[in-house]
Each structure stands twice: as C-alpha cells, then as structure tokens.
C-alpha cells in the first residue's frame, strides 16, 4: 500500500509546499490505485489518465519554481458523472447519454480546472442521480469497500467509494435528497451538502432543480471545508445562486458553547443497536461540554412524502429534453415522430427514471396540481419554518444519517423501501440548509454516519462544530479494502 493514498487532501497540499511530494507522483499513485481496484469496485465509469498527468506536470513546474500554490492546487479529484466536462463523455450513467460529450464545462469543473486539480475520472452513480444504492446505473453497480457484497449507497456511490477505497483524496457528488450524505455514511467518509445556491448548478445535469446541490466528499472535515472554499461562489449563469456569500471556510475556530437539538422524529424508529450507538455518542459528546436537547419537529415526518411529489415533478420536466431529437439515444427504427420520441425514451431510460417521470407528470397534470404539487410546496414551507425556529435555539441539529448500515445488493427491491433510505437527509434539501455526514461508529462491521444540519449559509459554524466532534469521536477510517 502506497502511503500517499492515505494522506488527506490538506496533507498532500502541505507536502507540495515543502517539496516532499510531486503532483505527478501523487496523481500517478491514485491512478494506479484506480486501475488496480476499479475492475472489482466499478466506482469509476471513465478515467482520464492523460489529462490528469498533464495537469500534474503544470503544477510540478510551479512547485519547481517555488511559486505559491492556491488552495488544494494539484490535489487530484474525482467527479460524479452528472457534471458536464468539455470534450469528455458525461453520461449520468444512463443509456440515454452514453455517447453524450458536452461542449462546455460545468462551473464547478471550470473552477477545478482553473485550480489545476488533476481530474482522475468520472464516477458511477444511480441513473440521473435517481436512487440510493448506485444499483440503477447503466454501467452496473458499485461495490462498497467495507463489504463488497453490499451497496455503497447512492446516488453518488462512485464518489463515496473513491474516497473510501483510497482511489481519490477528494471527490464531488450531488445531493437532491441525500445523495452525498447517505453514501458517505454507508462508506465511512465525510460527505457534505452545502446551502442551496452556494455551489453553482450550471452544467450539473438536473434531476430536481430546487433540491439539487453539488458538494464535497473527503476523508475529513478540514478537507471538506477546504474543497467547498474552492468550488463555492456566486455564478451569474445560475439564477438560483446565492449572491454576496463568503466562500472561504478554511478558518475553523474552536466553537465556545455548542447547543445541539435532537429532533425526536429522527430517533423514533431506530432499532436497538442503532439507538445504543447514538446514545453512546451523545453521552460522549455531552461529557466534552456539548449541550443536547430533544425537540419536536413533527413536520419532518412529512419529508419523504413531500419529496416524492416535488422531486419527480421537477424531474419529469427536466428530463423532457431527452427526446432523441438533438443528442442522446435515438431509436432508429421508428416510423413517425411520436414513435421515435416514445421508443427513444422508453428504451433510453431505466425503470426508476421512468417511474419518476410518470409520477411527476401525474402530479403536475391539470386537476392534480393543487392536490399534490401545490400542497407539497406548502408543506415544504412549513418544514423550512420549523428549521428556522429550531436554529433560533440551537447551533445545529443532529441525527443518524441513515437508520441502518448499508445493505446487500438486491435486498431492497421495493421502491418505497428504497425511498425511505433518505428519511433523515431529505428535510435538509427541502429546507435548503447545509448538512453533512461524518463517520461515527460501526454496526455489524459496517460504518454509520452522524448527520449534522446547520442554518442557511452557516457552513462555517457547521464545519467548526463538526471538526470538534470529529476530534472527540476519533473514528478510524480504515476498511478491509485498504489492504488490497
């Protein structure tokens, strides 16, 4: 095992500064690791070895000339395959887009490139980010390094595994209902979803526009905060982008008094083992002076239902552009326009995507709009308000990220069961608040995550508290796959 692989992103940056490591060396180490482990794990759907090494060379020239490097400059990164990369296939792991090569970079990709971070490749995901296990990918599922018979979570399963299996020091995912935090929890890494609008969505292939947000995967909180500093900021190309935001989260001061709310609704239906794990954690943290209080937030119980109306509604409209006319999969045997569109969409999309489109089309249709979509938006407002009330009393809210550790492939075949995987994480998307998952313990030899939610635009506070908790818990990231 190459020791480079175990370094955190900020540690790699430090090594560059003192010329202890070259960027080419580091990039090569991760590329080798990918080439060795990917046939089994299937976390990457494409690897861009050549361009990564070219970027590394540029950074090494700067290092040789003792030029000052930017934050994380030269630290390799993996991108979820729903972020558009100019000249490199961006497939959303769908048959529909297998051959789609964008002519433009997403804003995050542009920022990564401008910062000379070698892009290692594009990671596997649930088709169009719809799923919680990475099993709906057209390219086959990704395996969890903690136990290769289990799922890595989803939809950003590939990015979570890239960190967990030491294939990349950093990765980006996207989170619509928990798609960063849930796989981070299942894979024992840090995954963070920022406040809605902190990271530009320009060039992110949309699933549900009002919920989608790009965020970092990393080994620890410090890396997460540093990577968010690189990718965040107002973008005139995204009308929902947050104006006038602070974009440097690297100074994480020690918080003085920490007051954390525990929404009862999130602890209600846990099994005994899980309950015990989180009981032990809060006790341990209380002993360090953190104050915990239980609170009632009944509207959270409506989170999944609300999401199951809003997300498909937006998706049904966002995915209308995939009609076989201009790009993407087209059925060539069709005899008429309508037949061409119908067959292209029927054959190009997988079952879960079609389920979302059907649901969404239904809830937006005339006569259903008021009963479903409008009502869901009203509930969404109530959830937002409940969070605002909670944050007037507490610095952050805490819950488990998931109710159980990961599960075996094919174990959850009922879509409703699958949707419940996001029960803890969905409310943060509905409210637009920042939230992260931090590895916190083990159940049945599988990792569990601690879900921390902060107030809108209070990333700095969320990271600072998370860092303190990280220090107290001292979770060991190492999984069996590290030795492979």
């Amino acid at each position: 095992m190459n020791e480079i692989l175990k370094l955190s992103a900020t540690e790699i940056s430090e090594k560059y500064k003192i010329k202890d490591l070259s960027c080419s060396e580091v990039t090569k180490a991760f590329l080798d690791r990918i080439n060795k482990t990917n046939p089994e794990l299937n976390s990457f759907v494409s690897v861009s070895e050549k361009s990564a090494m070219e970027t590394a060379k540029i950074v090494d020239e700067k290092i040789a000339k003792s030029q000052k490097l930017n934050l994380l400059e030269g630290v390799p990164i993996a991108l979820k395959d729903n972020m558009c990369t100019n000249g490199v296939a961006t497939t959303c792991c769908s048959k529909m887009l297998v051959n789609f090569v964008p002519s433009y970079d997403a804003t995050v990709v542009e920022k990564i490139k401008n910062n000379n971070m070698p892009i290692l490749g594009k990671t596997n995901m649930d088709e169009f980010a719809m799923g919680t296990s990475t099993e709906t990918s057209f390219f086959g599922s990704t395996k969890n390094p903690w136990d290769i018979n289990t799922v890595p979570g989803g939809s950003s399963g590939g990015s979570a595994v890239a960190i967990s299996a030491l294939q990349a020091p950093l990765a980006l995912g996207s989170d619509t209902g928990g798609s960063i935090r849930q796989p981070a929890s299942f894979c024992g890494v840090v995954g963070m979803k920022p406040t809605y609008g902190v990271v530009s969505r320009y060039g992110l292939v949309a699933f549900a526009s009002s919920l989608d947000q790009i965020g970092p995967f990393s080994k620890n909180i410090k890396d997460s905060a540093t990577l968010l500093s690189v990718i965040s900021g107002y973008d005139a190309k995204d009308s929902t982008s947050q104006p006038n935001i602070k974009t440097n989260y690297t100074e994480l001061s020690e918080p003085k008094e920490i007051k954390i709310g525990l929404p009862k609704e999130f602890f209600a239906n846990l099994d005994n083992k899980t309950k015990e794990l989180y009981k032990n954690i809060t006790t341990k943290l209380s002993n360090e002076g953190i104050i915990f209080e239980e609170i009632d937030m009944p509207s959270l119980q409506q989170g999944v239902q609300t999401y199951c109306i809003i997300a498909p509604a937006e998706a049904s409209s966002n995915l209308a552009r995939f009609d076989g006319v201009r790009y993407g999969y087209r059925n060539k045997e069709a005899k008429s326009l309508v037949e061409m569109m119908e067959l292209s969409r029927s054959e190009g999309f997988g079952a879960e995507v079609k389920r979302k489109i059907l649901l969404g089309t239904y809830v937006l249709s005339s006569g259903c709009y008021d009963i479903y979509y409008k009502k869901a938006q009203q509930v969404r407002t109530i959830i937002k308000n409940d969070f605002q009330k909670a944050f007037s009393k507490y610095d952050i809210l805490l819950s488990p990220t998931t109710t159980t550790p990961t599960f075996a492939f094919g174990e959850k075949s009922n879509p409703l069961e699958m949707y419940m995987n996001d029960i803890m994480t969905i409310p943060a998307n509905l409210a637009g608040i920042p939230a992260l998952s931090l590895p916190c313990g083990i159940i049945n030899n599988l990792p569990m995550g601690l879900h921390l939610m902060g107030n809108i635009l209070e990333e700095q506070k969320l990271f600072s508290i998370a860092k303190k908790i990280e220090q107290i818990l001292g979770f060991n990231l190492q999984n069996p796959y590290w030795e492979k």
Partner: protein
Amino acid sequence: MNWEVVIGLEIHAQMATKSKLMCNCDASFSSEPNTHVCPGCTGQPGMLPVVNKQVVDNAIMLGLATKCDIRKLNEFARKSYFYPDLPGGYQISQYDKPICENGKLEIEVNGNKRTIGITRIHMEEDAGKLVHAGSDNIKDASYSLVDLNRASVPLCEIVSEPDLRSAEEAIAYAQKIRQIVRYLGVCDGNMEEGSMRCDANVSVRPKGQIKLGTKAEVKNLNSFKAIEKAINIEVERQIDILEDGGEIIQETRHYNEATNSTKSMRSKEDAHDYRYFPDPDLVPLLIDDDWILKVKNLLPELPEEKKERYINSLSLSEYDASIITTEKETADFFEETISYGSKPKETVNWIMSEVLGTLNQNNLKLSETKLTPKLLAELLILIDKNTISGKIAKTILPEIIKTGKNAEEIIKEKGLAQVSDQGELKKIVETVIKENAKVVEDIKNGNPKARGFLIGQIMKKSNGKANPGIANELLNSLLN
C-alpha cells in the same frame, strides 16, 4: 335573429432586443440555420436559463403604455409539450402571474371611439422552426429539419378582453397595438415577417344576451387583411350553424389565406395539458417602484399624446394630427421640419402627399433617403416666400430626395426662381392676351373657364416660374 359579434385578440409581439430571453445568443433573424444558438437555447443537459432584463423593461414599457398594473412579484412558469422545435421540452412563459394586467386601449372606427380592455401581457420564449421535406407538415414529410435560431427569442403576448364587436374594430385594435409597439421601439410590428402574430377568439351571441357564446380560436392571421377576412368568415360560419339550430364547438381553427377558409385543428377535448408549474431554475423576479420609475422615464411620447399636442399647440386639424402621428418616424420628421421654420399645416400636407408619395413610388423609407427635415423646411420656406411656386417645388423634390442638394442650389442651377417682377410678367401677360383674342372674347362674355386657360398659358410661357398671384392680378387689370 340579430347577432352580436364578440372578439378577443391574442397578439404575440417579438421583442426587438439584442439577445434572446434566456441566453446571450443574437436574437435577430438569420437566414443561415442554427447560427444563433448556444448550449442553452438548444436545450443541452445542465444548462440554465438567465432572464434578459431588457425584455422585462420592454414588457413594463408596454404595460405602462396600455395603462396596465405592473406586477411586483413575477414568476416564470414552464409550459410543457413535446415537439422537435422546443428543445427543452417546455417553453418558459408566465402563467397565473403575468407581468401586466388590467390595461386598456382606445380605438376609433368610423368616428366611434371605444375603450378595449387588455386582460394581460406576459413574457415568453419563442420556439424554433421546422422545415419539412416533401410536405407542409411533419406527418407526411420524408424528413424534417430543425432550425433553432428563433428558439428562446423573446415575445410579449398581449391578450385583449372580448371587447371587440367587429372585424373593423379588431383591425383598429391590432393597428393600435402595432403603432404602440413601434412607438416604444420594442417590436418592429412586421406581420408579414412574423414579428407580430395574431390569434382571434371569435364568438357570436343574440343581441342583448349577456352570456358569451362558445368561442373558436382562429390562428394563422398574418396580415390585417387576413384578420378581417378570417373573422368575417368565422362569424358567418358560426351564425350559419346557430341559425340551422346547431351548436358551436369550442376548438382551434386554422385560417387558410389562399382559400379564405378556416379548418378545425383540434377541439377542446384534444387540448394539451401543458402542466404549468413555476420554473425552479428561475427565482421570482421582483420589480420594485424604482425599476418601474426608471422605465417610465424612458417612455417616449405616445401617439395619442402627440396628437393632442399637435391639435392644441400647432393648431392642426384632428385629421392631420392623426395621420402625421400614425408612424413615429413620420411624426419625428415632421417635428424636426417645423423646427426649421416651415408652417405645420403645409408641412403635414407635403410630408403625407408629396414626400411619402415619392418615396412609395421608389419603395423607399424616410430613413433611407437623402431628404432631411432641414432640406424639406428650406423648400417649404421658399414656397412661402414666393421664391418658387408649389408646382416648381414638386418638380424639384425628387431631386432633393435623390441627391440631398438643397432647394436653393437646384433652383439656381436650373434657373427656376419664380418670376414676381411686374415688368417681366406684364410682357408675358400681354403676349398671351394678344395671341388668344378669341379666349379673351369668351371671358368678356362671361365664361369663367376660359380664364383658367389664360393662366395656364402664362405659366407655360414662363416655364412655370410665374408667380400665380401676381399673374392673376395683372390679367385682371389688363382685361378691364
């Protein structure tokens, strides 16, 4: 039975902005297909819309000009349907929160003034264009080509109340809208090229009945003539059905100008479910008082106001004031001309008959000639000072238009100055009297027409340069 016709118009005005509604692409017409396109307006994955603020300004301007309420909190909505000319699978439009509402417009038909309500004005994107091979429709075409130059070009849809009662009123209303959009400079109003398009909602009801009859929406009205003809035949069709005891079906009908007939496109049952919902890629657009005030300050003087001013301060007749303000370009030309000292009434006459007449003959626009307001004023002042006659002025106008030389220069070159010199003119008059003894006899016998003949001869002899007033006086004194 006595029937009353009820019409409402939906007018789509293409905004004359530099860029498209939701991206930075050139919004102007291009004959080269797919040259004014980008990943955004071709609906590529991951692309996001950004509202062109100029279109919002234009819509506010239109709203202010038609006395609408301007909505503070605006929302864009997606209107969904599948068609190859619609790259995103939805059109970004406004649904239940349009930018302008409750406006009104005054029209005049045969001296009757009426106020027509404006229900709403909203902003939306245009779709692309399809070219079918071997057919005029997609069903029978061997293949179809997609041109997305027009995709996301900004439109404002102006919807009237069902207040119009005849085809003439509908035309007067449409012309008024065209006049306003052209005055504001927000749209060129060209119906033939499709930058202004019109659909008519037509129904009839027995006179005196309050409840509206079932309507049909007539589409594809590409000229004022088409609006008139289509409405008239649709009214006729509906009355025929009702008088035969039939029922009108709510439907959309396509007007065919060549055959002057309408054909059913789809009934209410086949109407699309557009699944409107607020576009989650766009935040609500807040239009505050400052924004409205800023646009208000940009508003030009509108035709009605101009007309009033001309009547009140320039003493123009209602008719003259009305025709000279029809087009802003003409009104502007008029105002600049009189600023050089020509008389308003004469200036109107000259612009409307001589200037525009000559230009029309040569298929030119006012802006395309070398005639400037200053040159026209100089010409008119020469007539006023009796340096030349109106007749001479008419002969040199085409030259001014062609060359841009001033009138004085042309008169000098051609020796066209009017003869007002009594001595010189007297000789001519005497010669004419001598040569036309028989006519003189007729005059003395009381034939007034004969007099005109002598004046004509005087003008002819002087090569049209004789001052008609002085020639008349001389003729009078010499004949007595």
